């Protein structure tokens, strides 16, 4: 890992001067990005790190976290840089959302207005810092937003749209809807062992929807309750929509979540909002699991993973707390966790009708798998053989019950008595660099 610090100074060649800080020159990195998919809040993500340096860091300037493959993990803004010792600076950097906290937005009535324009207004149109997912480009907003900070305004807009801000692994904050495609975390990437916490049942969600109309006269507006809340000539009619939790037992203590006063909720989006909230709040399990995470899993992603008893579950990543070695490990907090039925897949690898290897998987029923067949390295007495599967990959869909697949292999290499013999050159590359052979030249 390393940090890249962008100054506002010109480097003399038309670019911005930057400073690279090796990970060895840092200690105590705290990096735990999160999202709030319920839209209840709009989290500001934070990175804290101690840097051994005599350099100064200015607030407001960009600092980036990179891995050793030069991929960006965070592109955030320095909030504080405090000398904790003569040659140690503790840097606190925050995501773009922090800058919205200090901007005040005027009240506005949206009448089937462009959501993208409303988002642009929150960010002052600084499109170099954020991007709006193309699926939201034609989204509309209807309803009233009072005078509020840009952060509150954006939170309201995202709540109405069912979107969130993805601000890790990117140089631009990405405003996007939740992708319902599950990313699979195999048992070979998930650490022993996940834990499950049970929250209290949410027995019901109640949400208030607003329908705005123009008063026919100023008197009508003044006589209505709306005059305390909304500008002339707007009058609002309220309707409360309720959804009971079908999972909650009858004797569960009543626990109602009530959401009102969010005036961008209307008859056009209230059912989407309530069913979205039900996904997160009606499943009361929260799962915490550790996995190898080299940027594959990000807060906001939906994942399929394994519980402690190796049953399969699905859930949404609310927070990922990272720890770095050469690779990265993260503790994922999953919400909206539900169980998924699973079934076994057995892949038998054969040579001359004899079995030379077997791989077993336990996948969700209905899961469409694609598995890269491994080269199989076997030593028989003092001979070492490397077998190449005839098919590079296998794919299929998991059905209930047993799923068994046979894959034939050929001998590619034989190593015996100090001599390595090549039997086949299709799709094989031999190399010593990096302690591996990767296959694949033809």
């Amino acid at each position: 890992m390393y940090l890249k610090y962008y100054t506002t100074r010109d480097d003399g060649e038309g670019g911005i001067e930057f400073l690279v800080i090796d990970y060895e020159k840092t200690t105590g990195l705290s990096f735990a990005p999160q999202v709030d998919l319920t839209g209840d809040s709009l989290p500001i993500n934070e990175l804290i790190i101690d840097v051994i340096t005599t350099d100064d860091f200015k607030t407001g300037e960009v600092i980036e976290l990179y891995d050793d493959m030069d991929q960006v993990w965070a592109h955030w803004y320095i909030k504080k840089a405090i000398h904790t010792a003569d040659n140690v600076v503790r840097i606190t950097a925050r995501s773009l959302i922090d800058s919205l906290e200090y901007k005040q937005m005027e009240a506005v009535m949206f009448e089937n207005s462009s959501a993208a324009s409303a988002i642009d207004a929150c960010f002052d149109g600084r499109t170099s810092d954020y991007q709006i997912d193309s699926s939201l480009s034609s989204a509309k907003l209807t309803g009233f937003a009072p005078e509020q900070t840009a952060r509150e305004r954006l939170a309201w807009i995202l709540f109405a749209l069912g979107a969130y801000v993805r601000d890790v692994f990117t140089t631009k904050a990405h405003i996007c809807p939740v992708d319902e495609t599950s990313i699979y975390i195999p048992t070979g990437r998930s650490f022993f062992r996940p834990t499950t916490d049970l929250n209290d049942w949410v027995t019901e969600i109640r949400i208030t929807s607003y329908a705005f109309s123009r008063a026919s006269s100023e008197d009508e507006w003044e006589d209505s309750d709306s005059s305390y809340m909304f500008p002339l000539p707007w009058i609002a009619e309220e309707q409360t929509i309720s959804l009971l939790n079908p999972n909650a037992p009858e004797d569960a203590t009543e626990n109602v979540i009530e959401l009102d006063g969010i005036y961008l909720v209307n008859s056009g989006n209230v059912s989407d909002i309530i069913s979205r909230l039900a996904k997160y709040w009606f499943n009361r399990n929260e799962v915490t699991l550790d996995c190898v995470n080299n940027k594959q899993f990000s807060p906001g992603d939906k994942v399929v993973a394994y519980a402690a008893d190796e049953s399969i579950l699905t859930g949404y990543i609310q927070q990922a707390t990272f720890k770095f070695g050469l690779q990265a490990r993260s503790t994922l907090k999953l919400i909206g966790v539900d169980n998924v039925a699973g079934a076994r897949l057995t892949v038998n690898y054969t040579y001359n009708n004899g079995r030379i290897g077997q791989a077993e998987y336990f996948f969700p029923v209905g899961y469409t798998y694609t598995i890269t067949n491994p080269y199989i390295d076997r030593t028989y007495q003092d001979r070492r053989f490397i077998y190449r599967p005839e098919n590079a990959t296998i794919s299929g869909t998991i059905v209930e019950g047993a799923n068994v697949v046979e894959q034939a292999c050929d001998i590619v290499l034989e190593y015996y008595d100090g001599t390595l013999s090549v039997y086949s050159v299709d799709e094989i590359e031999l190399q010593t660099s990096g302690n591996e052979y990767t296959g694949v030249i033809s």
Partner: protein
Amino acid sequence: MLRIDGVEFDVKCEIKRVAEISASDISGLLLDKSYFNDVLGTYLEYEIRLTYPLYNQGEYASLYEMLTMPVDAHAFVLPYNTRTISLTARVETISDDLLVFENGKKYWRNCTFSIISNGPSKEQTLESAIQRGLTPLPDVASPNIGDTYTFTSNGWVAVNN
């Protein structure tokens, strides 16, 4: 022969070599019961016992003083397989014995010290760690059927290809 910080010492040594394949603390047991080992690199440790003749206490003392200097590390040139290796290494421990004869003569002897390389002698890249692979094979871009290779002191060499 021993070379430390550019100074050569003509002394017989007994050397024990240990290679530590060091992994980070994110390593751990996975749900499929395999072990995820986040290997950072290979660090060499040498334990060296000097066998100076008793009469050469002058050179013995100067080597002892050099090794016990409170510095971060020294530059060593040490035997490594069929060649030598240059290592920047820190001295971890150093010990020796005092031999006292009846006539009152005193001789320091059996100086034994251990060093650990500061940096890895072999490193893994993040890219190769992500694509976990097998043990090394010959570096041949375009092998042909029937080619054979043999491992020699010069690495893998093609035979009759």
